């Protein structure tokens, strides 16, 4: 096992490249890897294809900051705090390519990649416009039963960004709460960066192997980043920062408001 501790800056500089397919952890505003997302923006990465299921502020921020070319998603929203206005504006202006999915079809895309397969079958989908407009969903027949199924094309991320609770320096990661698709995303990706609240000893890992959510083989960089999900929540460590999210929801109502937020809360700061 090799040591993989590095800084946020180094992790993003090394493993995130312009044009990459980037899977992002968490759901809604829960365990979103916000420090990593802000660093991607500060480093001015471009033409990213971002992938996630039900995503919020982090997708909207990357899109607003001009880092994104394509979005594979089932939902982009700030939940009860309002609309992801950067997503909406750029989508309406045709400035981002949308690869719209159902939750389970985008999950299945990642699942196919995690299994090393170019596609996986899925039930449902027929009759939805999402199926009809998609280039990544096709109809197939079961070779045994003749049933009609959807085929879902694999999405293999170049890099996955996640925030977790604990890891040792080799990258044995513990998620101490909802797993979401984070584990699947780490399996599927070529490289995975994890920010963690705490670095723990390898002995702790070995004394409780049941608690290891992602073993070191799937992890390429470990960044010790307490509060790395802020203003998103990190189960049992902190809840989401409602005031900050409201401020964001307010700011993105105009492009100027977003620009100001970006300057003040992202570009002129360091995580």
């Amino acid at each position, binding site marked *: 096992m090799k040591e993989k501790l590095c800084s946020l800056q180094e992790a993003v500089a090394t493993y995130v490249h312009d044009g990459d397919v980037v899977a992002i952890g968490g*759901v*809604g*505003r*829960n365990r979103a890897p916000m420090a990593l997302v802000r660093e991607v923006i500060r480093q001015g990465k471009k033409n990213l294809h971002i992938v996630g*299921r*039900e995503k919020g502020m982090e997708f909207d921020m990357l899109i607003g900051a001009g880092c994104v070319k394509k979005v594979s*998603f*089932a*939902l*982009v*929203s700030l*939940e*009860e705090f309002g*609309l*992801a206005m950067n*997503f*909406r504006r750029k*989508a*309406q202006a*045709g400035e981002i390519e949308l690869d*719209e*999915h*159902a*939750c*389970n*079809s985008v*999950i299945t895309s990642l*699942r196919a990649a995690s299994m090393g397969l170019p596609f996986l079958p*899925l*039930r*449902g*989908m*027929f*009759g*939805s*416009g*999402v*199926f009809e*407009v998609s280039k990544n969903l096709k109809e197939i027949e079961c070779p045994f039963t003749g049933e*009609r199924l959807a085929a879902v094309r694999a999405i293999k991320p170049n890099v996955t960004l996640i925030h977790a609770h604990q890891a040792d320096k080799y990258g044995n990661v513990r998620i101490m*709460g*909802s*797993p*979401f*698709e984070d*584990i*699947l995303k780490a399996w599927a990706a070529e490289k995975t960066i994890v920010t963690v609240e705490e670095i723990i000893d390898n002995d702790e890992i070995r004394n409780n192997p049941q608690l290891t959510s992602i073993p070191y083989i799937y992890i390429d960089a470990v960044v010790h980043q307490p509060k790395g999900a802020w203003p998103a*929540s*990190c*189960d*049992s460590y902190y*809840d*989401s920062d*409602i005031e900050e999210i409201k401020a964001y929801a307010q700011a993105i109502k105009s492009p100027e408001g977003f620009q100001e937020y970006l300057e003040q809360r992202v570009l002129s700061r360091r995580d």
Partner: protein
Amino acid sequence: MAEYTTAELMAVCLAREISDGDRVLQGLYSPLPMMACLLAKRFHAPNMTYFNTADVIDPEPKKVPFSTAGPALQERAVTYIPLWQTFDLAQRGELDLIFLGAAQVDKHGNTNLSAIGPYEKPKVRLPGGAASAHLCAIMDTVIWIPRHNNRVLVEKVDFITGQGYLSGGDAREKAGIPKGGPRKVVTNLCIMDFEPETKAMRLVSLHPGVSLEQVKEATGFELIIPSEVKETEPPSPEELEFMREIDPKGVRELEFH
């Protein structure tokens, strides 16, 4: 009778769709379904299984969180379960019900959360339909609409994100998605279901204080009005007390501001 809000009434209407023993999934940004699951489990369906987007089964939260995937919804759960496993369960036909929101719903229960106007050049790009294009095709759904008006309840959705009965009748069978479909639509004004033959939306009950005319005017298509239209049963004092105790911050009211 105790005073109650429209949100509280709608929450109990959704809860009543849950039978004891049912397996029910509550999605993201779903405060009313969250309340409905907790209500059902507390009162009439103690053996229902409650899945949520905090990726757990049967939590016992002391207070509900703002985000319906928030950490408080994990409390005292029996296990963590990534959503993909719950979807597998749905695909095996073992999930009984999911609640759906929508920006538009049409007379056959099709829902739109993708785009207003043409899909490729939308007038308004919506957030996306979350689980719907998959789950609506394979299981029973109940749709909740906090703002019943004729921009939301439309003759035909601009885009089918979640499959209702498509063009009605046996259109689902023909499309290859015979199972499930929308069972009820619960709005801030009334409860509706679907007429069995045509699969067109039909009034079931009016909420207390709401008139038939009010519903007709707020509906963008011709709603089937059966000979008997009941009044929706209001929440019981116990249900109200429970909601107010578990949700002191008023998460259930968030969609009604």
